[in-house]
């Protein structure tokens, strides 16, 4: 269960090997609002690299072609195109695809992609829902994982009133969350909120493992609620404190911790 929270728990500490290989449950609305890295067109949500995703909704406009089957998945928050490549030889696959009809609720597992500016899912599994408590479960999981990842990345989160007792604490105890807001005691004096947030973005494993670090714009996108000028000022402060340094040009910075 730990790895399903976007790989937060149990990530390796060494730099250069900290890709998220976990599974993110998402709503179509979250997918439409996911931020995109300017350098390599990968996505991230709540500070986590988006890799494997799972969505759940109703099939519409199913189209079967010789090499693939595609449909629109409507989960009540929006519609996204889902495509599944067909092998032709694989009977299990063929059965799965035959079970897809318009109006059927399905659970999709796949990768989030972007093609000509439009986001879509390339699915490796599409399974009809049989117990409809799964619908409630999926959306509750989306809320839970969103809260967990947002808190871990130091973003401002309104206190949730989740009453189900199981969700009182992150599952699995033991290993602390990877994305703890970095220790500020070395800095001295008070770092304001923006500086703290910018610093924690640079301290994320995905930032530490990148050779050139992050572009100012990438940082600004990850912490909504601050202007680009505030982010730039925060970066200047962090450079003066010796916490980050510029890499390939004046717009790219990396933590001195990496």
């Amino acid at each position: 269960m730990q790895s399903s929270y976007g790989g937060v728990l149990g990530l390796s500490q060494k730099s250069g090997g900290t890709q998220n290989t976990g599974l993110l449950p998402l709503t179509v609305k979250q997918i439409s609002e996911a931020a995109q890295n300017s350098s390599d067109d990968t996505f991230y949500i709540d500070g986590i690299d988006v890799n494997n995703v799972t969505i759940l909704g109703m099939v519409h406009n199913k189209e079967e072609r010789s090499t693939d089957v595609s449909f629109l998945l409507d989960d009540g928050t929006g519609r996204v195109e889902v495509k599944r490549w067909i092998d032709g030889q694989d009977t299990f696959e063929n059965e799965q695809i035959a079970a897809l009809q318009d109006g059927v609720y399905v659970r999709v597992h796949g990768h989030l992609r972007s093609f000509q500016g439009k986001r879509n899912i390339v699915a490796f599994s599409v399974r009809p829902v049989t117990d409809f408590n799964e619908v409630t479960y999926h959306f509750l999981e989306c809320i839970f994982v969103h809260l967990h990842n947002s808190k871990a990345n130091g973003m401002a989160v309104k206190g949730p009133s989740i009453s189900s007792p199981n969700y009182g604490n992150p599952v699995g105890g033991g290993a602390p969350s990877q994305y703890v807001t970095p220790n500020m005691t070395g800095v001295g004096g008070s770092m304001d909120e923006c500086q703290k947030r910018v610093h924690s973005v640079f301290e994320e494993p995905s930032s530490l493992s990148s050779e050139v670090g992050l572009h100012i714009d990438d940082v600004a996108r990850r912490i909504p609620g601050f202007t680009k000028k505030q982010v730039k000022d925060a970066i200047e402060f962090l450079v003066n404190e010796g916490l980050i340094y510029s890499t390939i040009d004046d717009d790219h910075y990396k933590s001195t911790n990496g």
Partner: protein
Amino acid sequence: MDTSNPAPLVNAELLKRYPGRRVRCVLKLVRAEGNSAFSGLTSDGMHVSVKQVPSATSLSQYVEVIGVVDSDRSIRAEMCTNFGDNFDMSSFNQLVQMANSEHQSLFI
């Protein structure tokens, strides 16, 4: 990718927030009225009637209605999906409350 027309999850209390809007609601079947209507209980325990149902006689105990809010206590159905006979209404009700308040940003 299209998020222009979301259908919020609702219970009886939230129906009145979306008059004339398309919503999603799970109801516990109380009584079928002819072949094109039925009345049901929402997840917060109120009676709601549903009209223009495709085939009200083959409904399971729990039904998801996607349709337009007609009044505080009635929905004009576009689609009905059988949600089976084992559905946890109290969890669903809590989801509905969260999806319309503090976690609205994930849904609508």
